[in-house]
């Protein structure tokens, strides 16, 4: 312990300027970041100046600068402390002194805990407190965020620092790493045509597992043996493995297992019917990069029982034409459409390469669409009157009303802050009133709703902040369907808001088979606009 403390004190004395800068930046972040939550309440930092400083004003810009600067300061703080007893080379003073590598490592760990982790933890607590949450209720999330920080950032960073001789070399290695990541992303975007990733089933566990094991192996090899060759090989293997995960998504391999087909004879929790009367015709449009075609299949969706919601997670398509040619897509992520109780017309969408589209468009094909879905059930429901000030919503956090920018006296929705993560999937519904809030309504009211959060959020979302925003846009039906020149829909303070929260109950895979499907012709951009407003 004496040695650990001696090394720790030495580092603290030597790097006090770096420590001071790091902590000052964190303090500034804690002071500035909450102002972005209150941007509408403060006209000096908000709306009037948004043209020059972004929607959240100069404090918002400063907050986002600090979001970048704090991690940069952490990198410097970490690198300086480890490089001062560097492991690469054979002329360092300490390698022929009675330094026990475990104690040296422990001293560096103590240094990071004291000057990086502890201030970060305290900053997160203060932010929670500032946002109206009791930090003691979120200790699990707070520690989980520290774990994510360690696994995703600190361990790989420390591994690279141990492998480099100085800060310049470290920067070069980090630059190289950024180039590798950019190149991998570029290649993946060429190879793969789906921009939405699959649901996170295995990849994050595998990714974090690889990062933790690979980085720790490199660190231990360097501290125990100072064998840079073996440590570099470990880091290279780790980089290759993580890059490969982008090409061979491990989630795709376990989709069938995680989203099983319902047993034969059991009632399907959601059904899709193609070709029902009143449905629009299928459409095909080019994706943004014009390399693939997005096919939209209109379906009548029904069967979701009351109190449930089906959330679309991924689709897989197979096509077979009369010549016996078959094409099967990989699993593609979707935009997570939610299917509610009752019957309604909706779309199932998938992407195929343009070349494949051209091959199959001449003549009927047998189309099979597998839809992977999560079934969720209402876990809690609360009705809370909309207030023109911050108000607490159980299970979500603290919400505040949002106003129209051109008429700050009128409400348009809410924005919620939740602790450690976005909230569990929640449907927020509210009734808009026709006319002025103070006057008696002369027409029917109109309901609007929006979704916030997602299914199965973990104990914490990885981030520098412990408070997450979830905007709820309640204006859509009121504006698009009903607004007229001489009329006004109002969202009035005191209006009851219904917060319905859902929890995953099961996962399943449903298949829709469409025989003799004729591929639709490619729709032009003008036609798409017409189709949208039809």
């Amino acid at each position: 312990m004496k040695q650990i403390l001696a090394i720790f004190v030495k580092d603290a004395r030597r790097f006090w300027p770096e420590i001071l800068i790091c902590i000052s930046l964190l303090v500034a972040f804690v002071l500035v970041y909450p102002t972005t939550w209150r941007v509408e309440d403060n006209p000096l930092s908000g709306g009037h100046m948004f043209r020059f400083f972004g929607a959240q004003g100069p404090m918002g810009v400063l907050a986002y600068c600090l979001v970048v600067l704090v991690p940069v300061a952490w990198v410097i703080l970490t690198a300086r402390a480890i490089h001062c007893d560097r492991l690469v080379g054979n002329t360092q003073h300490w390698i022929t002194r009675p330094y026990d590598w475990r104690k040296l490592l422990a001293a560096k760990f103590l240094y990071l805990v004291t000057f990086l982790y502890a201030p970060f933890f305290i900053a997160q607590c203060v932010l929670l407190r500032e946002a109206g949450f009791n930090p003691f209720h979120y200790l699990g999330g707070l520690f989980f965020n520290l774990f994510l920080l360690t696994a995703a950032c600190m361990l790989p960073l420390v591994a690279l620092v141990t492998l480099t001789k100085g800060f310049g070399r470290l920067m070069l290695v980090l630059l190289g790493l950024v180039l590798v990541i950019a190149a991998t992303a570029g290649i993946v975007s060429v190879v793969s045509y789906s921009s939405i990733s699959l649901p996170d089933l295995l990849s994050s566990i595998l990714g974090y597992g690889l990062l933790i094991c690979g980085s720790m192996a490199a660190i231990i090899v360097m501290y125990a043996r100072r064998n840079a060759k073996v440590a570099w090989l470990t880091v290279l293997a780790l980089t290759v493995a993580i890059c490969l995960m982008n090409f061979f998504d491990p989630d795709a391999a376990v989709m069938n297992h995680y989203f099983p087909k319902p047993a034969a004879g059991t009632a399907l929790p959601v059904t899709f019917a193609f070709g029902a009367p009143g449905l629009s015709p299928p459409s095909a449009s080019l994706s943004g990069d014009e390399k693939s075609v997005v096919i939209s299949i209109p379906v009548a969706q029904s069967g979701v029982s009351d109190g449930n919601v089906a959330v679309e997670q991924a689709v897989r398509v197979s096509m077979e034409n009369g010549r016996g040619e078959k094409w099967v897509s990989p699993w593609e992520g979707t935009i997570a459409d939610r299917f509610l109780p009752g019957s309604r017309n909706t779309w199932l969408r998938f992407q195929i390469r343009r070349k494949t589209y051209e091959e199959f468009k001449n003549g009927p094909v047998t189309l099979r669409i597998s839809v992977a879905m999560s079934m969720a059930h209402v876990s809690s429901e609360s009705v809370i009157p909309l207030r023109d000030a911050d108000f607490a919503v159980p299970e979500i956090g603290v919400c505040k009303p949002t106003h129209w920018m051109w008429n700050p006296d009128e409400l348009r929705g809410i924005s919620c802050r939740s602790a450690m993560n976005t909230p569990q999937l929640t449907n927020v519904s509210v009734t808009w009133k026709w006319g002025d809030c103070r006057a008696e309504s002369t027409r029917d009211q109109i309901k609007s709703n929006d979704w916030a959060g997602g299914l199965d959020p973990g104990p914490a979302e990885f981030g520098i902040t412990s408070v997450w925003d979830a905007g709820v846009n309640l204006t859509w039906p009121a504006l698009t369907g009903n607004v007229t020149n001489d009329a006004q829909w109002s969202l009035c303070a005191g209006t009851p808001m219904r917060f319905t929260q859902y929890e995953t109950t099961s996962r399943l895979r449903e298949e829709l088979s469409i025989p003799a499907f004729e591929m639709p012709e490619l729709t032009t951009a003008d036609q798409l606009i017409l189709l949208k407003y039809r």
Partner: protein
Amino acid sequence: MTLAIRTDHLRKSFGRTVALEGVGVEVPEGAIYALVGSNGAGKTTLIKVLMNIFRPSAGTATVLGRDSKRVAADVFCEIGYVSENQEAPDWMRVGEMLRYYRNFYPTWDCELEAQLVRQFDLPLDRKLKHLSRGMRMKAAFASSLAYRPRLLVLDEPLSGLDPLVRDELIEGLLDRVPETTVFLSSHDLAEIEGFSSHVGFLESGRLLFQEEMSSLTERFREVTVTMKSSAKVPEGVPQSWLQIEAADSVVRFVHSGYSEAECSVELMRYFPTAHDVRVEAMTLRAIFLAIAKTSRGTRQQATEDRTASEVRA
């Protein structure tokens, strides 16, 4: 005899470059062993193998009874290491550095530390980076002697220092002997001649010889034989006669196994008509030059023989 350092058929190569080949060093406890050799001979490599900075490619090395591959924190409590190439915690003040190192050595002697500070006239409040080379070396010595190490390993500790600093360091070193075994490397014979008890000579990665300094200077003599008429090198001279050459009426050679009685007999046998014989003691420098030149000559001959046999084949 207990050995503080022992290597056996030690080999160290870096890729195709062989830095050490078949080195067998034996350093008795309490000795001041000087490892001498020209630049690039492999002295630093050998020291780095002993300090477990490099791992041997073959053979073994033992330091204070421990395999060099296992020399770690616990052994470094008993070893002091000073090298001209060693980085120091430059940002620290001298006093800070000494206080810092105190934490690592259970045997750190504060009184001895104070004595060394006085002896070397160290400025405790000056940062190491602001010290002269000599002062830095003295600070390194103080930080490596204050815990009374059993073994002090010094890699070219005196090179480039002015004579005054050199004397101060040597004096500080001699104060610790025989409590501390000293193993030092140098390419300058003059600087180690006065105080070393043992010497080893490393050339091109090979240890040509090692010996107690007293016996070495005892057995080497420069012999000059003057003949009455023109002289020539006799056939079949003993192998211990090195660098034998004849010019006019004089034959000169270095006797590497000199003893008065045997030498007289040998001289009578090979030079029965000698007019005059002079036998002179040699400086360490002259001894090393004789050995190095002979060794190079032998190696060149061996290479030529090998080439010739290959050509013939």
